[in-house]
């Protein structure tokens, strides 16, 4: 099967056209046009990307299988965990959100739940203290901010 490269090639040509078209819409820089304006380099890139993507469509490599089955769901879970980690880092604070995120990832990768969340908690606390005391860097405490000294 050679769908991957073909589909990717088509997408990249679409990108190249959109990117190149956007370059023609740039306003003229203050002080008048020069030999090479802000649009020249992007236009070159659009042409190069279009040609190389065309090659992918014409001479595609064999596909690597996509993980459609359960593994695919695990991957989506991992990405969702990462997004939630970023989202909750400030409201929940570093220690709690890290415990949850690292714990969940370890667990989904095959560790026993207890071990997984223990790893998360220990690593969170260690990194937190390393950062706030040794490196003098403030990570958000969030819900645990009542523990804050002074």
């Amino acid at each position, binding site marked *: 099967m050679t769908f*991957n*490269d073909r589909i*990717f090639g088509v997408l*990249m040509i679409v*990108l190249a056209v959109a*990117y190149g078209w*956007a*370059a023609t819409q*740039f*306003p003229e*820089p*203050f002080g008048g046009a*020069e*030999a*090479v304006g*802000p649009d*020249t*380099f*992007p236009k070159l*890139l659009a042409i*190069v*990307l279009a040609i*190389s*993507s065309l*090659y*992918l469509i014409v001479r595609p*490599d064999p596909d*690597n299988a*996509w*993980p459609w089955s359960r*593994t695919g769901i*695990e*991957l989506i879970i*991992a*990405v969702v965990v*990462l*997004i939630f*980690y*970023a*989202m909750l*880092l*400030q409201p929940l604070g*570093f220690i709690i959100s*890290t415990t949850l*995120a*690292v714990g969940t*990832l*370890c667990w989904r*990768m*095959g*560790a026993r739940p207890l071990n997984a969340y223990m*790893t*998360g908690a220990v*690593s*969170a606390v260690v*990194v937190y203290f390393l*950062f706030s005391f040794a*490196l003098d*860097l403030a*990570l958000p405490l969030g819900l645990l901010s009542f523990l804050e000294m002074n």
Partner: protein
Amino acid sequence: METLGYLMDGFGVALQPHNLMFALLGAFLGTLIGALPGLGPANGVAILIPLAFSLGLAPETALIMLTSVYAGAMYGGRISSILLNIPGDEPAMMTCLDGYPMAQKGKASEALAISAVASFIGSLIATIGLILLAPLLANFALTFGPAEYFALFLLAFATLGGITGKNPMKTVVAASIGLMIATVGIDNTGVQRYTFGVLELFEGVDFIIAIVGLFAISELLFFIEERAGGGKEKMKVNKLSLSWKDIRDILPTSFRGGVLGFVAGVLPGAGASLGSFISYTLEKRVLGKKGYFGQGDPRGVAAPEAGNNAASSGALVPMLTLGVPGSGTTAVLLALLISLNITPGPLMFTQNADIVWGVIAALLIGNFLLLILNIPLVGIFVKLLSVPPMYLLPIVTMIAFVGIYSISNTIFDLYFMVAFGVGGYVLRKLEIPLVPVILGLLLGPEMEKNLRHAMDISDGDWMILWDSGLAIGLWVFAGLGLILPYIVGPLLRRGMKGATPTSGSPESD
């Protein structure tokens, strides 16, 4: 003898206690990064960059630390090759061929010690080569005009896939994507490009975020997909019994491997993987029937290790003198230079002489530190190797989050990093290499600047780009870099495949 004077100044910088301390820390972390499968050198160095910033290190200290990490990673790669039969990083692939059989015969610690000595010799030769060659090349590069630089950047992209690369067109696609991302933001004439009015994009895409996302996050996803969380069974490490004779036996091999590796490292398109491959094959030829390669010959361990360590120091030559890296990890080191506001290239040797020579001296010192770390203390690394990836990778991911968050304390950057990670996963699935994307991000602004300068000089005549003999030469080599893989690539690849299993680590050396 000007060089010697600079080098002495360099030692003055590198021997300052705090620099020495960070070199040691870097060497330790580097060995660890190299040893752990799933944490390649490019990935490891990338994650440490934001941490170096948040430590508020002086530029030379930061650079010394991360160069030590880089050197250490090359030492560390061999540990998992020998004990697990999985290369810790791609260049350590050839070390599996004889290293693992040695370990199977109960000679794991001899294999580790021999490879450490060979690594040391290889690195030492290459560092001396670097000291001799770099100033010459930097002087030569001073004659480059903008047109030559533009062609040089093209050459860098064209040869990045290496002559063993599978599909050079994919390198071109990857490089274009990287360069396109680099054009996002306000350009130097004040025009907004591809910002879509998003405030966070006005200053462009921070390449550190992109690099960490592309490497660290995509690696996590790959491990999850391969369900390799449990790790592999490890060989037992016996008590070391190594005589001077054993070391003497591998010396000629290590010297040959070191010289070859250095050449492979300096040349564009070769790199550490090819360096270790050539050293190994040559040694097999030279020794012929006298060796028992593939069945645990110590020289089969020494040759590729000397080769890949020499190549990785050699790869610093184009990175430091021309500002053009030839591999993933040197690209990441270039990212560090740019973010420290040091313009890489020939001028660095005059404008930032203390930094450059400090780093070179640190490489020499680092080698001795690494030898010490890697012979008596190898047990520590072996212990850490048994940490299964299912615990390791989430923690590494968390450290990547902390590092990126500590740069600007914004959540937007974290989302961006995750997005790059998912993108990196998709690209790797399609076998589109990530290193050209990163190089595009790094070199994009310089490349465009040089194009503009060249055009300003010629008043808009495109012919200036191939007007000088040097520029034409660079264009020709760039062309060869794209065409040769189709001709010699299949042959070389077949040779390198051999008996070794390929790991899921990103293409980096």
